[in-house]
């Protein structure tokens, strides 16, 4: 029985009905991984342990919500005794002595972590072309990028290998690849999911979240991933709702804002048409639309490219070739050890961002760049606060277009603009979701919904309403492209 493209609830039902054993499910998953090797979605597999855990579940069945469900974990979450590279040569030999809270939460709910997914190095990239372990490819077409940085997770879900995967989103790294791969991905409110055990990129922006084919599966994952964690001082101590409850509650009368300042005339006509169709679709479900103004939103990308590199240069100074990770051969002295270990361990994009960070934080430039960007960040957040006094949600395309060919974007700034529509939610710490909403030239596109702080449940409810009345999320690469 094929397990490809099955949802979490499908697989749970199959396991409960004994249509398939836990061991068979995991064996089938590894067959799918094998059959999709060309996509390069995984850096490290966890086959032996996964099969052992599955056999154990066959002998001792459990009622846990994710019991026996194969999940792919982004290689940015540390996993005890399982190599964690963060897409970097720097950590090519790193075996963590502990697991991230997200991993513990999911595994305590019974899931089986089948492997670690490929990603842009240290999550810095929007096409999964900066990984030391090679490009990830999008199952929707030859040589297409899956987006990034959670490109391996997105491609693994889009190819139907696993029903769900973990991702992280600093400037769009869950939503942008979800859009380009035709799947669903949610970035929760900053602080909703513990960052303990996430290898830090930009600490005031980083947030983990689930990626799956449906909003319903994202809700099941959210229920387990969210927790208040005393090991992360920015972890929110707020009530965590049951995200799966009332998913299909009607959304009639809901008010959505369309951002005046997002100039869609610069986008491909077909891309705009897909967005407009989605607005009509929501109108048919009783949603009301209103134009809103976020006067500073077009400053989000430049603001982000001061703040994120600044935090990255500080966070990545821990990689010094001394305590763990890569060390250069035969260092002459301590300084040579630092310089050569870092120069050999990091790739070009990571080095670029460390340098920008060091520049904007250096004496004489701090006020002009870092402080200035933080001030603009507040203006952007204030704009959102004002907008949410008028509307319940904000709607926009997730990306400017569909997946592009690997190697076709060589200018760093053009690549940075991939995150034009996704970065604002990170700066303001707001939750955002991307759902499949159409195709252009047989390539999927995503629709982004941004909610006010802690409104993940509302986002999932609104996304689910779209999905029970459309079938974009059910299209699969093998059914579209023969």
């Amino acid at each position, binding site marked *: 029985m094929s397990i490809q493209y099955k949802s979490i609830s499908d697989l749970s039902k199959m396991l409960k009905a004994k249509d398939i054993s836990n061991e068979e499910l995991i064996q089938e998953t590894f067959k799918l991984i094998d059959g999709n090797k060309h996509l390069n979605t995984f850096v490290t597999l966890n086959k032996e342990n996964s099969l052992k855990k599955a056999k154990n579940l066959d002998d001792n069945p459990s009622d846990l919500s994710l019991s026996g469900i194969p999940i792919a974990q982004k290689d940015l979450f540390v996993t005890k005794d399982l190599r964690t590279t963060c897409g970097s040569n720097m950590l090519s030999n*790193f*075996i963590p*002595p502990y697991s991230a809270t997200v991993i513990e939460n999911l595994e305590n709910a019974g899931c089986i972590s089948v492997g670690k997914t490929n990603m842009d190095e240290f999550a810095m990239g929007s096409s999964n072309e900066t990984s030391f372990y090679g490009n990830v490819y999008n199952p929707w077409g030859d040589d297409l990028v899956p987006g990034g940085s959670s490109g391996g997770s997105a491609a693994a879900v889009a190819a139907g290998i696993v029903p769900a995967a973990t991702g992280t989103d600093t400037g769009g790294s869950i939503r942008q690849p979800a859009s380009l791969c035709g799947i669903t991905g949610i970035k929760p409110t*900053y602080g909703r999911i513990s960052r303990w055990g996430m290898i830090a990129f930009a600490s*005031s922006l980083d947030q983990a979240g689930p990626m799956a084919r449906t909003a319903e599966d994202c809700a099941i994952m959210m229920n387990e991933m969210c927790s208040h964690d*005393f090991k992360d*001082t*920015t972890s*929110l*101590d707020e009530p965590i709702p049951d995200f799966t409850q009332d998913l299909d509650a009607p959304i009639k009368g809901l008010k959505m804002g369309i951002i005046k300042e997002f100039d869609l005339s610069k986008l491909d006509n077909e891309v705009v048409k897909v967005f407009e169709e989605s607005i009509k679709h929501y109108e048919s479900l009783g949603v009301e639309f209103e134009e809103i103004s976020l006067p*500073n939103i077009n*400053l989000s990308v*430049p*603001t982000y*490219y*001061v703040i994120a590199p600044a935090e990255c240069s500080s966070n990545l*100074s821990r990689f*010094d*070739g*001394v*305590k*763990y990770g890569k*060390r250069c051969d035969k260092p002459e*002295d*301590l*300084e*040579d*050890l*630092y*310089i*050569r270990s*870092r*120069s050999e361990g990091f790739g070009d994009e990571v*080095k*670029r961002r460390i*340098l*920008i*960070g*060091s*520049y904007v934080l*250096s004496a004489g430039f701090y006020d*002009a*760049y870092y*402080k*200035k*960007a*933080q*001030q*603009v*960040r*507040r*203006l952007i*957040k204030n704009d959102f606060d004002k907008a949410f006094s008028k509307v319940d949600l904000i709607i926009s395309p997730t990306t400017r277009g569909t997946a592009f060919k690997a190697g076709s974007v060589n*200018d*760093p*700034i053009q690549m*940075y603009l991939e995150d034009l529509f996704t970065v604002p939610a990170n*700066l*303001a*710490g707001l939750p955002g979701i991307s759902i499949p909403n159409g195709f252009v030239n047989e390539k999927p596109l995503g629709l982004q919904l941004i909610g006010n702080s802690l409104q993940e449940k509302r986002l999932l409810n609104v996304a689910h309403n779209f999905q029970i009345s459309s079938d974009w999320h059910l299209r699969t690469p093998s059914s579209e492209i023969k």
Partner: protein
Amino acid sequence: MDKETVATISYLSRLKFDKQNEEKITTDLKNIINFVDQLESVDTSDIDPLTSPLEKIAKTRTDEVTASNRKKEFLDNAPDANEDYFLVPRVVE
């Protein structure tokens, strides 16, 4: 942003580039800094910097021992270590 500035921030970042890459990285950084320079035109007088979207005071906890000594596990990941210490090239003659 010129070659000299790039050399200074490279050293501050403990990174090294060969001649060929130096050109490219200087151009890239120049373009990126030009790009973020558009922030300059925004009036931010009297605006407090936003350092984190939470704006909450970091939580504290009682100072209790919560972890056991796992020295061996941590030293096992080190490129070079003895039983007690991370080892680096000699720094004191």
